[in-house]
């Protein structure tokens, strides 16, 4: 249990740190911070994508990789599995977490909805980085309808 808290606190500090040095409170500065967070997540995801599947069997197809993300990656980082995975068989996947650990302590409902994207950027990068190591170039975005449920949309291109 203590391990999960370590990452949550570190993540909160990362977000707070990036936002406190905002000399440009307009949308330009915000985008910079979001992309810095996403970049950090990307590099971490790349390394995790190498280390976590080390002992697993070879992934035969894209769906195997997505299942790996929902089960093994999510359990390794957040100690729980993703709640649902939907696919449209054309390269778009929706991963839904009904009690996302990085949002769960904030609120339950619509309070703080505008702040939520800050706390999702790192995780989007994490997913994108892991996918990229496993051979899938993708674009990952996240959306929150009401805390602490969040959905990640991954549009992949494995060519």
């Amino acid at each position, binding site marked *: 249990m203590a391990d999960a808290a370590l990452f949550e606190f570190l993540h909160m500090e990362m977000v707070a740190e990036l936002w406190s040095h905002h000399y440009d409170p307009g949308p330009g500065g915000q985008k910079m911070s979001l992309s810095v967070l996403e970049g950090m997540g990307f590099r971490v995801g790349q*390394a995790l994508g*190498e*280390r976590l599947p080390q002992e697993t069997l070879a992934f035969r197809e894209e769906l195997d990789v997505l299942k790996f993300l929902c089960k093994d990656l999510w359990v390794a980082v957040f100690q729980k599995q993703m709640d649902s995975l939907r696919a449209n068989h054309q390269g778009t996947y929706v991963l839904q977490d009904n009690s996302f650990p990085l949002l769960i302590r904030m609120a339950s409902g619509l309070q703080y909805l505008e702040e939520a994207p800050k706390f999702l950027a790192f995780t989007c990068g994490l997913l994108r980085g892991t996918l990229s*190591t496993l*051979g899938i170039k993708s674009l990952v975005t996240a959306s929150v309808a009401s805390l602490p449920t969040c959905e990640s949309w991954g549009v992949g291109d494995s060519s």
Partner: protein
Amino acid sequence: MVHTSLDVVDEKISAMGKALVDQRELYLGLLYPTEDYKVYGYVTNSKVKFVMVVDSSNTALRDNEIRSMFRKLHSSYTDVMCNPFYNPGDRIQSRAFDSMVASLMPQVC
């Protein structure tokens, strides 16, 4: 010769994808023997391919030993990836990795 063996690796990978073989292992086994050398292959989930070329005269080398060498290579490569000073895609310059590879070689030569 390593390039032709890469073609064989690709063949094996695509064969694995089509045929519903139960064996979904990372280790590909003996790719093909030539007169002087044997070539072994191993592919990771991140599509990184390791190719090992061994002198045929060394007949004492068993399958298990090759497998364990590939496992060590994979694990050192993972360590290199996790190094914050390493950018994925660059040439590997890690001394730890080089010394691990060097330590494998006396077993083979």
